[in-house]
């Protein structure tokens, strides 16, 4: 039996300890290779304020899968920016033969017209990864931009899906180019297994598997996968965190508000 580690001392999770303390891991059966849907609350890195939510829906295919992404940014209130997209894989590996398309839209102002898209601000993107080449296009672009000689690629929030199926063995890692936000090409990313931690989640002891994401333009991040259910429970970097479950709008702003106020006023 592993030693129980207080959540306050677990790297990454200690930033969102209050959230983890109230996180209820769903009991329902979960197959990371099957069809599923999960919603995450997006938090500031200090774990307090809810800044939006991410919903992922995976549809397994005979070969490959489709991942539907719905990322909504709102400062604890109305949706402000929304990125919705589809990522399709047709190969045996997640990073083989990728195709994606996304729609990015700015929504109504801070204080009015919640969830009403401002039509002129809608932007669209699509791209693919095939034959070691990443191709990116958007509506205003006649020709695609290409990045060649890419050994492996993952798109946006695809990591949230993949990490639930990665081997949980020390020394296991995967290197790839990340197409962040459906269009930002960030080479040299590595996600690596970094051990199991016995800690307390939602008042109950659980074993979590830690995966570390490091690379170009990436603030070190930890991904936490529940041993029992294989669900990804949380992703934490210094700047932001994703925690499984939805938080009511406007919830949990106090602590982050203090930290941000301090940061902004002092500096």
């Amino acid at each position, binding site marked *: 039996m592993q030693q129980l580690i207080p959540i306050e001392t677990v790297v990454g999770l200690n930033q969102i300890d209050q959230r983890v303390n109230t996180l209820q891991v769903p009991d329902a059966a979960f197959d990371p290779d099957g069809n599923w849907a999960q919603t995450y609350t997006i938090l500031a890195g200090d774990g307090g304020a809810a800044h939006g939510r991410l919903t992922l829906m995976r549809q397994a295919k005979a070969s490959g899968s489709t991942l539907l992404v719905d990322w909504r940014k709102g400062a604890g209130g109305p949706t402000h920016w929304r990125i919705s997209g589809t990522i399709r894989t047709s190969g045996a590996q997640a990073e083989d033969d990728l195709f994606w398309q996304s729609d990015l839209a700015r929504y109504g102002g801070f204080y009015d017209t919640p969830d009403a898209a401002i039509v*002129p601000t809608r932007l669209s993107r699509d791209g693919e990864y095939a034959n070691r080449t990443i191709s990116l296009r958007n509506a205003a672009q006649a020709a695609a931009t290409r990045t060649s000689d890419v050994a492996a690629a993952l798109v946006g929030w695809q990591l949230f899906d993949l990490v639930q199926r990665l081997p949980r063995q020390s020394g296991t890692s995967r290197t790839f180019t990340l197409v962040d936000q459906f269009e930002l090409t960030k080479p040299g990313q590595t996600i690596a297994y970094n051990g199991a931690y016995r800690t307390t989640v939602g008042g109950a002891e659980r074993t979590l598997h830690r995966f570390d994401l490091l690379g*170009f333009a990436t603030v070190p991040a930890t991904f936490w996968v529940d041993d029992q259910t294989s669900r990804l429970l949380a992703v934490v970097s210094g700047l*932001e965190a994703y925690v499984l479950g939805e938080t009511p709008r406007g919830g949990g702003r106090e602590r982050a508000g203090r930290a941000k106020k301090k940061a902004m006023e002092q500096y």
Partner: protein
Amino acid sequence: MADPTPLSFETGPSRRDVLRVGLTGAVVAATGLAGPSRVASAAGESPAASRPNVLLIVCDQLGFDAMGWTGCPDVSTRNLDRLRQRSVAFNRTHSPDPVCSPARGALFTGRMPAETGVIANAGQIRPDIPNLGQWLSQHGNYDTAYCGKWHLSDGWAREGGVPGFTVLPVGDGQGALVDHTITLSCEAYLNNRRAGEQAGERPGGKPFLLVASYMQPHDICLWGIQQEQLVPAELPFPQLRDRLPALPPNHTARPAAPASLDRLRFKRFKSDEQWRYYLYNYYRLVEQLDTEVGRLLAALDRSGQADNTVIIFTSDHGDGRARHGHVQKGYPYDEAVRVPLMVSWPGRLRPATLDDQHLVGLIDLVPTICDYAGIQPPPKARGRSLRPLLEPSTAPVDWRDHIVSQYRQSGRTVRTDRYKFVRERGDPTLQLFDLHNDPWETRNLYQDPALADVVAQHAQLLDVHEAALDYAPNVDPATLREKVEA
């Protein structure tokens, strides 16, 4: 003073190939260089006949030498490196005050912080001084739009919250949650303008001033504020141990300094590894910024406006980055005061040019932009138009021989070609650095008898500067600090 050296590149060198600038500012190496570029001359052209758009990219807390093209080995900034290839890059650019709000107040007015009244964070520009948006929209017939961090009365630009500008709102949160929406909002703005022009809704070709005010790499502040979680005693990612940046050579330098600077020094990191891990994260944030700038510049290219747009890239101030034992900003050392500045306009300005000689500052941006807009700068603007330094010319440029910055309200710094002199009202410890022989600012020479005249001359420069200021009502000229209500 000699003209800066014009350099140009063939095509797309990597950051490893481009110009390296040492901390002395000297050109160390240049590979892949071609001969002088062919640049169309703007001489003889009336400013009003070629009023360009202006894309002003302001980032937050980016050090002057924290990019790949400056020779920093710890960061990869391919987009900023590319921008540098088509820009005049100034290597001696000074923030008027190395803290967010005072710097921004001065940047957007061309006036010193003691004049704008913004001498601490979150202050407001005094109402009788116009900001750039007000001036350009009223006198230059420009469309003015602002997106991102404002921090002059509020952190983020909110609808109706930035006088003279149409605000493109982006929401709240730290940089990671905001910077990409800044890019997208700016792209949408450019797309909408293009659509409007194609539909004939924008007669007269009204140019735009678009400010993209990014947050990064400012979020590194969180690594200090939340040090216990983010920079614990034990390296949280042991696999990085061999990849952490080296500490700067002046990390342990403690030259005699005003007491306020000693108080500012960051004392919570107990090991070199903690400092180096802080640096590692800082450079990842710089890379995040770089990817956003790349995305924004690509959007500008797609908008069809790139050839008629002056791009200005700068930062409000730098970051301590372990130099002198500091993190963050608010003190007069180069790591906080010196900022990057790159200016480009395809075919009009000198590309791939490093200006390593002229002392310039953020207060020069308002006069420069007004110059290209074909209008006079606002009254009493302290800065000077950079135009003579940007455009191809063989004529020598008569330029200033010193530049003043302030810090923490009552601190003043004057930089001349060779020296930096620091004086803080009410503190007996002065500072004098010989930046030619001591670019890392490790030896305070103010008590060197051989340099007494130099000290006196620089003190006089500050006296003259202070006597000429039009102090804001909330600033006490006697103390240089904010007036205390009775």
